[in-house]
């Protein structure tokens, strides 16, 4: 591989964002809109830096407070996500595997599923108060269903002969579930987990805007009241960045776990 092509491979991915940000900066400085309505990226960066490291206290009581806000949101995401992952995978496998579980549990779940998680906010507040718990509950609702649906699908599409092979070799039902059904359903389960990451951040932020008095979503909404649109954009970018990092973690975990799939699928294709 020659040098220019390496250069393009590494820098190619940054071209579009750099051009977009440059255009935005130029547009903001042109004075077409008042700077308070569309702050320039440089302004946002400066605000963000103060929020992160308390540089000049331009963000007032938020100065240097980013880490606390990020951790507060992160804990909610992680909490709700973990509960949803564990329960979604286990209930999903149970529904996919046992006909009687499917008959008794699935109709109820399918009735609850179309209710948008956000519409649970009032009940979440009266049940759990204004703290971490309503946010965790919402994250759980948003993540549980995609994980569940994909787990069910993963179990139902397992090759029947794979189960027969294990039965022939004397597998107990417990062994079947742990050693055959779960690993065979993993590709589908991971698809659900990745969809879940997106809704987890979305719902944490929503909950924080309405029902919680801390976290990135709260700062975002609070800054809107104080007309600090630079802060709003910095908060949006923070959420996007954290969402991206979370997804990257799940993706890394997925490629490490599903290493056996690589050579036979498009993702293992060599360029």
């Amino acid at each position: 591989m020659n040098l220019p092509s390496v250069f393009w491979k590494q820098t190619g991915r940054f071209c579009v964002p750099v051009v977009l940000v440059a255009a935005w900066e130029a547009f903001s400085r042109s004075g077409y809109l008042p700077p308070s309505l569309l702050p320039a990226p440089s302004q946002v960066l400066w605000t963000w830096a103060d929020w992160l490291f308390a540089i000049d206290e331009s963000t007032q009581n938020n100065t240097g407070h980013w880490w606390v806000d990020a951790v507060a949101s992160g804990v909610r995401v992680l909490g709700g996500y973990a509960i949803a992952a564990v329960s979604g995978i286990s209930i999903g496998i149970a529904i996919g595997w046992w006909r009687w579980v499917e008959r008794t549990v699935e109709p109820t779940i399918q009735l609850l599923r179309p209710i948008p998680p956000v519409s649970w906010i009032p009940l979440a507040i009266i049940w759990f108060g204004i703290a971490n718990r309503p946010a965790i509950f919402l994250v759980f609702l948003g993540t549980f269903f995609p994980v569940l649906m994909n787990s069910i699908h993963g179990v139902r599409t397992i090759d029947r002969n794979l189960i027969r092979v294990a039965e022939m070799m004397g597998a107990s039902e417990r062994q079947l579930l742990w050693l055959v059904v779960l690993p065979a359903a993993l590709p589908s389960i991971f698809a659900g987990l990745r969809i879940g990451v997106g809704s987890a951040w979305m719902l944490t932020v929503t909950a924080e805007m309405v029902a919680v008095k801390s976290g990135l979503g709260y700062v975002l909404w609070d800054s809107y009241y104080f007309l600090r649109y630079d802060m709003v954009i910095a908060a949006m970018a923070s959420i996007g960045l954290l969402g991206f990092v979370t997804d990257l973690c799940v993706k890394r975990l997925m490629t490490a776990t599903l290493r056996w799939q690589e050579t036979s699928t498009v993702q293992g294709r060599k360029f």
Partner: protein
Amino acid sequence: MSASIKVSGVRKLFRDRGPGIDVLAIDHVSLSVGQGELLCLLGPSGCGKSTLLNMIAGFESPTEGTVAVNGGLIAAPSADRGMVFQQPTLMPWLPVWDNVAFSLKLKNVPKKQRRIEAQRYIDIVGLTGFENYFPSQLSGGMAQRVGIARVLLLNPAVILMDEPFSSLDAQTKLEMQEELVAIWQRFATTIVFVTHSVEEALILGTTIAVMTHRPGRIRESIKVDIPHPRDSTSPAFNDLKRHIMSLIRQEARLAPARLVTPEPQ
């Protein structure tokens, strides 16, 4: 370690394959396989030969009649009847050696010992060097060898094979057939081998049971006394081939007629 199989008066009716349609897959099949025999079940697609095999394995149960191995009636799948499927049916998340020794994992045998035990059978089927490959990295023939090694490790009394070589190319198929004969002679197990190829049945079988169109019955059971390895160009081989082909041709003529005749209930 081999066993005898006795199939007596077996019928198999599949219900609810469509609204009000019951399919009679097998009709009054009786058949016995002696110890150390290599029986080839030969028949056209859809004649119920795989269904018969599945009933010997215990994956399905007969609507009427009984299947017994060494005198014991079959109720469920078990490790003394090892099946090699048409598709390799390997656990795609396990490397070759772990697939071969999967039955030991179920018995909680420690990893080190499983690895050693697997190696023996990997060497027997000629996959040495591929121990750590994943099934997705193997060719069809190699994957099928893993399926065979896995069954050999089970050391079953009966090996059941459901058209295991039908998706392989001609050359690999020949190679695998020769190896199967070698393995059968070495382990002296009873094998029931399902195939739709007259040639394959003649290369492998000590007995060939020719089945009819659906509903499957045994048309004729033919002893093949030609010693292994068999020369497919020898006169004896071709005499038998001619005979079996004529049976199959007769069956093919009868098949459409049977479709119009209503089934006696």
